[in-house]
């Protein structure tokens, strides 16, 4: 890695850290579990590194390591996004209910 690329990478890292701090400190405790599950799914982005290793390298060992890495990273991505969506769906359906709740309360 040449110095210019390194410096650019450090910039990206620092800005991402800053941005992450700004965005994530606004997430309410209510959503901390989905947040953890979502960031975990997003960090499954190491899948793209795994894809390159599995498909574009030239030794058999690297192919096999890459294949295992693709598998675990895909579990992370698919499972992570799937379960996050399942959780957020539960938080989302609240909307219509809170509308009906006061009505049923008033009738009693």
């Amino acid at each position: 890695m040449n110095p210019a690329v390194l410096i650019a990478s450090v910039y990206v890292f620092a800005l991402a850290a800053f941005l992450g701090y700004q965005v994530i400190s606004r997430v309410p405790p209510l959503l901390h579990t989905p947040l953890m599950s979502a960031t975990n799914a997003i960090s499954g982005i190491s899948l793209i590194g795994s894809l390159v290793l599995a498909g574009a390298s030239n030794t058999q060992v690297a192919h096999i390591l890459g294949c295992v890495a693709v598998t675990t990273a895909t579990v992370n991505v698919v499972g992570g996004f799937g379960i996050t969506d399942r959780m957020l769906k539960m938080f989302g359906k609240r909307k219509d209910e809170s509308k009906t709740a006061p009505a049923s309360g008033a009738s009693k």
Partner: protein
Amino acid sequence: MSLTSYFMEATYLLASILFVLALKGMSHPETARRGMFLAEGGMLAAIIGTLIGAHIVTWGWIIVGLTVGSIIGAWMAVSVPMTAMPQRTALSHAFGAFAAALVGVGEFITHGAEMGVVTRGALGFEVMLGALTTTGSLIAAGKLHGIIHGKPIQFRGQNAINLIIFLAMTGSFVYFWVHPTAIAAFYTMLGVAFVFGVMLVIPIGSADMPVVMSLLNSYAGLAAAATGFVLGNNVLIIAGTLDGFSGFILSVLMCKAMNRSITNVLFGGFGSVIATASAETGGVMREISLDDAAMQLAFANSVIFVPGYGLATAQAQHAVRELAELLESRGVTVRYAIHPVAGRMPGHMNVLLAEANVPYSSLYEMEQINPEFPSTDVAVVIGANDVVNPDARDNPNSLIAGMPILEVDRSKSVIVLKRGQGRGFSGLENPLFFKPNTSMLYGDAKSTLNHLAQAVQRV
């Protein structure tokens, strides 16, 4: 650069933007789900971009990995119950970190010889963090799932041994960094990092799991970010850093909620000590009959439910919602008080109650609800212990002194649902149980709540 490479870089940029927007959406439950669709789109774009632009020559391994991974992932996403969310998340951290570690090893095998000093350093971090997060997360998942005992595992000289392991790991890292041809040092580092992950988590008790989960989340993200440095790939750096910082922020919040430092959580072995500090509280715990408890609840003006990990183990989230609805139909104001570290991971209780269709508008955070307790008729504690222990506030000698608590003892009366007379995970005596306004209701939380609901209907 070829056209396909430009296309690939464009998808990476798109993915980075979409990831940030997704996390921004997380600031409100109404926008969170839409945000995650953006993130999913970003991930898909990055994958397609890579497959098109990365000069893939062999497809077999990729197709096998993607297929097997998707099947396992989809199965996990559909089948895991909400009560098992902490262990699923821990397992997922292990998978992600393992992928990062493997990419590191693969990168070492294929390009190890021509790596510059910076890349080698990043590679070392990637492999170390990836490996220790893999085993650490597996141990955490085992503890959370009950395969491994939740009590801290400690022995004499543990911290000294851990220090030696840590030095061995960093030592082989430095050696590999200085001597790029030292293949043995690289694999020693990898092996020792696996061991270090185990050693790091076994001394930590189940009650401290929210912190450990957040830390492992952070490490898994940083491992991905280090991968980005190794491959010179910005989307990996961005996504990994977002994850790393999210985990870091959560760990800090969790530590604050327990009034403890991260070092204390990691090396304190909390929960192994049977405290004597407040054992003299003495007195008797007053038991209450189901019908009396139902009577109290039915004629109250306001009730606050305080859920803890016991709610999760008893799977009582639906039962508590049914009881709450019954009370609401009688005109009782029902609220839920959620302590930041209730349960085994950040936000654990919120997810369980959301699953049971409890409206999130009736879930209150600690700071919001504490002033409300004095005007509350009945506080119902369901399987929570340390987070309502008044010793944290009143007894400076207590092990949990200074930890912010839900001040249920200030409400007019308290009903504690508890499995038995034993102490909580931390082994601390809880003076709340001996207060004159507290009454105990023993038994499995789920069946107790069901019976309470029936009794309320009869009132």
